[in-house]
């Protein structure tokens, strides 16, 4: 049997907001579109920033990377605030479950000695790397032109401080509820030669004043570092009785896949721009010229330090990742400087 539900039918005057009709035609819009497209002011600014009198409050020239239409970039994940926090609440819960499993069985304390050293000396200090990555990302949240790019940067910033907090939680679990491993990890971040390349990179990026160049350089470093620290070591850990490391690492690899989706789309959009394609390639090449060797060296220092603790072939993995990323970049028509 079927109910015949009667409701009053009222014809709507319009399907969505006029700015979206102008862009996409007269069709219903998604919540992502209604909450993201054309939100940022673009004209008739009243005053110049006291801290940047040559710029408008929102100004496409805060970066060398340009788009003819800022909304040619759309986040392929279609994330606006509500689905963002919902997806992160779910991944946060998954991480907490893994960590609880590891913690109650004290699996970190039972890691083979070399793996304990990897956690203490190289994984835990990366919470500072993630904290620096947050600062770089939030710069985009302020200085990107257009809400879709701003929004993706904002969520990336929050993700990265979340990553930093999750690594810190690993550190606390590693110490059975105490923080001295975190304090030691900070000393290593500040002084261990294996990590100075990374730290120097982050600090130098923080004074660039071009959020997109910072973001691109950070992403290049992420690609190599995540590939070694999380993808490669995840597998190696499973093969050498360090399951706890694998349990933790998988969450960071999963996050990075998600992060890649919007960054790859942004790069694609920059290079496909009808007007600024070459300008954007030149800006990207500028980042490569200035940063690529620095990044490769910083990550290979980490890889060598990993191999010194447990010989998993991290150096070879770093080299393979470097070649793979270099090949991808070359395919995009970019100039990757020859390394040593």
């Amino acid at each position, binding site marked *: 049997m079927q109910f015949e539900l009667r409701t009053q039918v009222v014809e709507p005057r319009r399907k969505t907001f006029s700015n979206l009709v102008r862009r996409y035609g007269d069709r219903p819009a998604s919540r992502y579109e209604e909450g993201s497209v054309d939100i940022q002011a673009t004209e008739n600014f009243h005053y110049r920033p*006291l801290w940047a009198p040559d710029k408008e*409050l929102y100004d496409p020239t805060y970066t060398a990377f340009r788009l003819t239409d800022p909304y040619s970039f759309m986040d392929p994940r279609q994330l606006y605030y509500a689905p963002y926090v919902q997806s992160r609440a779910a991944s946060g819960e998954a991480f907490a479950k893994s960590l609880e499993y590891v913690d109650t069985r004290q699996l970190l304390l039972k890691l083979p000695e070399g793996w304990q050293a990897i956690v203490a000396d190289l994984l835990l200090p990366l919470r500072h790397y993630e904290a620096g990555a947050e600062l770089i990302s939030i710069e985009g949240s302020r200085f990107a032109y257009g809400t879709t790019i701003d929004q993706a940067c904002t969520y990336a910033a929050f993700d990265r401080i979340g990553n930093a907090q999750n690594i810190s939680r690993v550190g606390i679990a590693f110490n059975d509820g105490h923080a001295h491993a975190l304090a030691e990890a900070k000393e290593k971040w500040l002084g261990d030669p294996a990590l100075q390349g990374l730290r120097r990179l982050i600090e130098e990026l923080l004074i660039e004043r071009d959020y997109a160049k910072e973001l691109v350089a950070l992403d290049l470093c992420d690609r190599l570092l995540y590939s070694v620290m999380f993808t490669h070591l995840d597998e190696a850990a499973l093969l050498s009785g360090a399951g706890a490391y694998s349990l933790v690492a998988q969450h960071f690899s999963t996050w990075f896949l998600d992060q890649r989706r919007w960054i790859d789309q942004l790069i694609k959009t920059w290079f496909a721009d009808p007007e600024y394609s070459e300008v954007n390639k030149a800006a990207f090449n500028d980042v490569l010229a200035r940063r690529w060797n620095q990044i490769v060296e910083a990550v290979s220092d980490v890889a060598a330090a990993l191999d010194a603790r447990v010989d998993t072939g991290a150096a070879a993995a770093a080299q393979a990742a470097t070649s793979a990323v270099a090949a991808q970049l070359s395919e995009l028509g970019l100039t990757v400087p020859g390394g040593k």
Partner: protein
Amino acid sequence: MTVPTQKPARKLSMQQRYSALTHDLDWDPTYVTEEEIYPYTTFEGIKVHDWSKWEDPFRLTVEAYNKYQAEKDRRLYAVLDGFAQSQGQLGLTEARYMNAMKIFLQGIPSGEYQAHRNFSHLARYFNGPGARFASLCQSLDELRHAQTEVHTLSHYNKFFGGMHDWSRMSDRVWYLSVPKSFFDDAGTAGPFEWLIAIGFSFEYLLTNLLFVPFMSGAAFNGDLPTMTFGFSAQSDESRHMTLGLEGIKFMLEQDEDNLPIVQAWLDKWFWRGYRLISLVAGMMDYMLPKRVMSWKEAFELYFEEQMLNGLFKDLEYYGIKPPRHVQWAIDEKEILSHQVYWVLYQYSHAAAFTTTIPDAEDQAWLEEAYPDTWPVFKSVVWDKAQRVVDSGERYFNPGLPQLCQVCQIPMGFTEPGNPLVQCQRHSIYEGERYDFCSDGCQWIFDREPEKYVQAWLPVHQIYQGNCGGPTLPDVAVWYGLEPGDGGEYIGSMDHQDWLAWHAPTIKEG
């Protein structure tokens, strides 16, 4: 199971754990200098000796934040979906209630969005990790508010005028330069001034005056989505208020030289914010079919009682005095809404909301709420407007108003104590004359004339030919106005649709 042999006695306390997850992530740079990483925290003159003294007003981790916020949004969007599916707009008190929401959508989400962007600026450029993380959370909250407001009103946009082009209108339309210039002013200032302007003055001093009328107005008028949004935003707002209060205390405790700077910002932003929310005063007394309370009552409760007699008593300890020009605001409380609504009435043919003469029920309420001032206003203004209507016409002001150089509201405010004499002040700067609606706005201009001469004044821009053309229809097109957006409410598209929706019909099944 093995138990570690040398187990230290004490594990991390909640506070230590929180600190390890947040503040301790920071480090002192050595490859570059701290000044290079955080270059914007000195030029305003605020002295900070120890950023670690910043007390986190709320100890949220990313994990907890995502969990709470996800749950709140799940509930909010469930209400929005249910309301849309059941054609909930049919249950509003009257279609003219939507005018309040038109002003809300045109003016507020773009402000929330500006707050998001500029709290991100603080989240990047404050030296202290505690202040940065609190700003980061607020940045996300503000983005949430911008988006949930748009999503809340998205359903109404499909059935009513005035909402369809809110983002373009907030960049272009004359009365929306009032909120836009307010947030542009704060966003172009330094990070500490932003914190006093928005974090403290707006989010703490004036927030109840801004949000309670809209949200309670929604509750009284059958607007379930906006009311639900209001409740949902409330817990975010209470965090923002705490951040604003922590911000001002932090500055005052760091160095006594900060006091005069903070006091001047407070004086400026009180007046700036007060003038901005005079639009709310007009809305709450004249646009809600069912009223919550009058502007005067709201001002007395949320400002005089809670702020002047509460907050400012606490701030006396630091040497903070109530805002300069506060007495002017107090003196205006019985006339403000009348004056603002009269401006909106005269110019609503060039606006994206409709207005109408208060009906008999409205007038009885106004008379009771404002026994001293309403009768005068009625005879001077509304009786005349009514005579025009009786003759088959509708009075719209055919000219363009002069705008105050600072608040950008048309010059329609009066001299203190004399509600029939228009107030006009002016200053000369580099040989040019600039006009103001009040002592407050003139004082703000005189402190920073080089800033306020830059203002994008809508009326000047029209005269300069920058708004689509020389005639009102040209400008209306450039504004994005469509038939049904503005003008008189009685007989408007919203009104006619409303009558048609509610016409008694009997249909055989």
